[in-house]
C-alpha cells in the first residue's frame, strides 16, 4: 500500500470530465488531481455534482466527455469491477451488507473467488489491528451499530489494498465519538500512502482532516483550496457563492399548550431487527421545538411510525394530537387534525422516485387541496409543486421532474417544503438535514424555527447534535427504545447528551438510563 508513485505524477487525474443529463450539465469540464497519500475533500452544495463525479470515477456511470488518468496512463472504467482491479475502493453512503450474515461472511461474499473464509478471517485480524478498526468476525451484521457496519465496508475495501479510497458522506450516520475514531483511521491510511477522496457537508471535519479541497458549484470547479487556511464560513460562502447567515431565532419561542402528548407509549419491535419502544412520554407544545437525539437504530424510525400513525398503538390515549386521542387512528386522519410528517428516507418513503414532483404532492393529499371528491386536481397539484419549489429554493433540472432526478439535498427541501407550506399545527420530522449542504440546512432549520415561531409544535428527531442545539427549545435522548427526560436545551451539555446516547448516563434527570 505504501508505494508512492515514483515520477511524482498524481495518482489519479481527471481531465475535463463532463456529464450531461438532457439539458443539464451535472459535471462541466472538471479537472481534479489527487496525489498518493493525500486526503482530498470534494465539497459543494446540493446538486453541485459531487456524487455524479465520484460515480464516474468508480465506473458506475459513464462520463459524456473527459478522461481519467491513473498514474499518468489514460484508463477507461466501465464498471466498479474494473475500478477495484485498478486499486479504487468506495464506501457508499448507504451500506450494502446482508443483515443475516456474519462480518466475515459479508466481507467474503464481496471479494473475488480466490478469497476463502479462513483467509478473510486472518487478514481481517491484521487490518483491524493495524488501523484500530475493531470487528468481531463472527458477529451477525444486524447486531451492529451504524459505525461498526461502516467499519465492515471500510475493511472490505482495505483488504483489496486500495490506492484510493472514496468516501461519500461517511460521518452522517456516526456519533461524534465514532466519527473521531474514523478520522484516526483515515490519518493512518493516508500515512501509509493510500489517497482518500472525501465528500462531506460538515466543514469542520473537513478542516480537521484534509489538506486540499476542490469545491464544485453548478457542476464546475470554482476553487481549489487548503481548507486549514480558511474558516468554515469562508468555505461555505465559496460553495454557494455568497455568505450563509446563522439561523435567526427571532423572539424566543413561547409555548402555548400541548399540541402533542405521548404517554406510556410502548410498541413491540416491528421486524426481526426492529427496536421496541418502551414507555415513551413526551409533550410538544404549540410554539416550541422539541429535539430528540440518539444514535441511529435506537428506535427513531419506530417512534416516527408511532407518532405518524404508520403503525398504530394499542391504546388510543397513547398519542394525543391537538387535544384529540389518536393512538389508533391512521396517518390520514392525523394529517386532517393538522399534523404533518417528514420521514428520514426521502426516496421511496417520503417521495416516489419515478413520480413527478406534482404527483408527489398527492402523498399528503389528505390535508391539501389537490383532490376533490376522489378526483385529482392536476393543475392545483402542479401549482402546489411550483410554490414549494419557489418557497424552498428547490433546484430542479426542469419544471416538473421525477423525484429521483433531484440531488439528495434538493429533494429533502421539497419533501420538507411540501409539509411546511401548509402551516401544520404539528410537524414531526426525522433527520431534517440528512445529507443537506450548509446553505440548504440553514434554510430548512430556519423554516422549522419560523414555523414554531408562528405557533406550531415541532418535533425534530436528529443525530446531528449541533443541529439540535441550534434549533431546539427542549431536548431528550432516545436509547434502545426508551426516551430520557425532556429538558430545556440550556440544561444539556454535549457530553451529557453523548453519554445518554450511549446509555451510560447517571444524571438524576435521566430516570431511564440503563
Amino acid at each position, binding site marked *: 500500500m505504501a508505494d508512492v508513485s515514483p515520477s511524482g505524477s498524481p495518482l489519479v487525474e481527471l481531465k475535463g470530465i463532463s456529464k*450531461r443529463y438532457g439539458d443539464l450539465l451535472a459535471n462541466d469540464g472538471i479537472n481534479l488531481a489527487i496525489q498518493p497519500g493525500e486526503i482530498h475533500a470534494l465539497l459543494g452544495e446540493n446538486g453541485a455534482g459531487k456524487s455524479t463525479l465520484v460515480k464516474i470515477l468508480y465506473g458506475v456511470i459513464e462520463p459524456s466527455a473527459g478522461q481519467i488518468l491513473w498514474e499518468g496512463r489514460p484508463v*477507461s472504467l*466501465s464498471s466498479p469491477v*474494473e475500478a477495484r482491479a485498478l486499486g479504487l475502493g468506495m464506501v457508499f453512503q448507504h451500506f450494502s451488507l446482508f443483515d443475516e450474515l456474519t462480518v466475515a461472511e459479508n466481507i467474503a461474499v464481496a471479494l473475488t473467488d480466490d478469497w476463502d473464509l479462513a483467509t478473510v478471517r486472518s487478514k481481517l485480524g491484521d487490518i483491524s489491528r493495524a488501523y484500530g478498526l475493531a470487528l468481531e468476525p463472527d458477529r451477525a451484521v444486524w447486531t451492529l451499530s451504524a459505525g461498526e457496519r461502516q467499519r465492515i465496508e471500510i475493511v472490505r475495501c482495505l483488504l483489496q489494498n486500495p490506492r484510493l479510497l472514496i468516501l461519500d458522506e461517511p460521518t452522517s450516520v456516526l456519533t461524534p465519538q465514532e466519527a473521531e475514531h474514523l478520522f484516526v483511521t483515515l490519518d493512518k491510511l493516508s500515512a501509509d500512502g493510500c489517497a482518500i477522496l472525501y465528500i462531506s457537508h460538515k466543514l469542520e471535519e473537513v478542516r480537521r482532516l484534509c489538506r486540499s479541497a476542490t469545491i464544485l458549484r453548478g457542476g464546475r470547479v470554482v476553487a481549489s483550496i487548503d481548507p486549514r487556511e480558511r474558516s468554515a464560513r469562508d468555505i461555505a460562502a465559496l460553495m454557494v457563492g455568497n455568505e450563509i447567515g446563522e439561523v435567526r431565532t427571532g423572539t424566543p419561542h413561547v409555548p402555548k399548550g400541548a399540541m402533542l402528548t405521548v404517554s406510556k407509549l410502548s410498541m413491540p419491535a416491528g421486524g426481526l431487527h426492529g427496536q421496541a419502544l418502551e414507555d415513551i412520554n413526551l409533550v410538544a407544545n404549540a410554539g416550541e421545538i422539541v429535539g430528540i437525539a440518539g444514535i441511529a437504530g435506537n428506535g427513531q424510525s419506530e417512534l416516527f411510525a408511532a407518532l405518524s400513525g404508520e403503525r398504530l398503538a394499542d391504546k388510543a390515549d397513547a398519542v394525543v394530537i391537538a387535544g384529540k386521542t389518536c393512538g389508533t387512528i391512521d*396517518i390520514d386522519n392525523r394529517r386532517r387534525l393538522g399534523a404533518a410528517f417528514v420521514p428520514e428516507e426521502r426516496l421511496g418513503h417520503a417521495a416516489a422516485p419515478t413520480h413527478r414532483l406534482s*404527483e408527489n404532492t398527492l402523498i399528503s*393529499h389528505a390535508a391539501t387541496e389537490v383532490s376533490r371528491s376522489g378526483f385529482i386536481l392536476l393543475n392545483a397539484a402542479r401549482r402546489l409543486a411550483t410554490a414549494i419549489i419557489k418557497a424552498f429554493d428547490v433546484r430542479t433540472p426542469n419544471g416538473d421532474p421525477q423525484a429521483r432526478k433531484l440531488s439528495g439535498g434538493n429533494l429533502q427541501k421539497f419533501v420538507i417544503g411540501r409539509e411546511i407550506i401548509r402551516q401544520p399545527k404539528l410537524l414531526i420530522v426525522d433527520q431534517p438535514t440528512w445529507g443537506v449542504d450548509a446553505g440548504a440546512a440553514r434554510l430548512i432549520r430556519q423554516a422549522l424555527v419560523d414555523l414554531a415561531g408562528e405557533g406550531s409544535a415541532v418535533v425534530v428527531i436528529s443525530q446531528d447534535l449541533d443541529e439540535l442545539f441550534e434549533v431546539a427549545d427542549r431536548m431528550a435522548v432516545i436509547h434502545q427504545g426508551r426516551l430520557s427526560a425532556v429538558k430545556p436545551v440550556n440544561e444539556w451539555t454535549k457530553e451529557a447528551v453523548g453519554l445518554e446516547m450511549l446509555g451510560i448516563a447517571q444524571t438524576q434527570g435521566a430516570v431511564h438510563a440503563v
Partner: protein
Amino acid sequence: MRFELTPRPTISPVARALAPVLAFVTAFLIAGVVVWLMGRSPIAAFQVYVLQPLSDPWALQELLVKATPLALIAIGLSYCFRANFWNIGAEGQYVIGALLGSWLALKTHGGFWVMPAMLVLGILGGALYGLIPAFLKTRFGVNEILTSLMLVYVAQLLLDYLVRGPWRDPKGFNFPQSVTFDPAATLPLVADGSRVHYGTIFALVAVIVTAIVLGRTLFGYRLKLTGDAPRAARFAGFSAKHTTLAVFAISGGLAGLAGISEVSGQIGQLQPSISPGYGFTAITVAFLGRLNPIGILVASLVVALTFIGGESAQILLKLPLDLTQAFQGILLLCVLSADALVSHRIRFITRGGGK
C-alpha cells in the same frame, strides 16, 4: 464477455412512439421465418393471418366478439398489475362468473329482470372468487400467484362437474352441456343480424371508465403509488390491505362479467369449454397494451386477430393452432424488448477493461 442494460439519461419521444411499430414488424419477421422453416410461404401466411380477416366484414365482427372478453379481463388485470399484485387466475374468475350467472338462467323462465340479474351475479361471482387469493394474501401472507392460479383448476373442474352432472341437459343425448338459455337469459345483440353482443359495449365502457379512474382519480394514483413505492403508499395513508382487496375484486368482477357475457351472448349454454384460455391470454393483452386502457383496447384487437387468423391458417395452410400462441408470445417479447431498449442501452463489457 457479458452485457448489461444501463438506463438512458434521456428518452427520445420519437423512439418511444416508434417502438411498438418496430416491435410488430420484428414479430412478423420472426413469425415469417418460422412459417418458412415449416415449409409454407410466409406471404401466404400473412395473407391468411392478417389481410383476410381485416378485409372480410364477417371476420371483422368475429374480431370484435373475440376481442371483447380479452379486453374486459385485461382491463381488470391492469388494476392488479399496476399496483404490483399478480392475479393470474382470471380464467377461474371468468368461469365462476359464468357459472353463477348461468345458474340464474337455468333456474328461471323468462322475465325482463333475468338478464341484468345474471350480469350482476356474474360480476359478483368473479369478484368473490378473486377475493379468495386476496384474502389469503392479506390475512396469512400467502403468495397470490400460486393461489390464484390453483383456483383456476378448481373452477374448471367445478364447471366440468356441473355440465356433466346436475346441470346437464336431460334431452341433450348425453352431451356434457346445459340446456340452451331462453331469450330472456340471452345477452342481446348490438344490432339485428350482427354477431356483436352487448359485451362489446361493456368492454368499451370499462376502457373509458378505467382511463378516467387511472388517470384522474386518487384511487388510480393509489394503485400507481402502491406499485411504484409501497412504503410511500403507506405513508400516504393508503392501506395495502384495502388496495389488495379492491384490485382483486375489480379484476375478478370484470373477468366474471366477461364470462357471463360470453356464455349468454355468444355460446348460449354452458359446456365444458367456455374459453380458449381468454383469462391467460388477457395477461399478454394487458402487458402488450402497457397496462394503459387504450393500449389494452388495441392489444385485444390485435390478439383477437391472431386467434381468428390462426383458425383460418389451420384450415387453409394446415398450420398447427399452437402457432397462434407462439406468435402471441413472440409479439409480447418483441414489445417488451422494444420498451426496454427505448429506456435502456445495452453495453457489452469485456473482461479486464475497455468497452
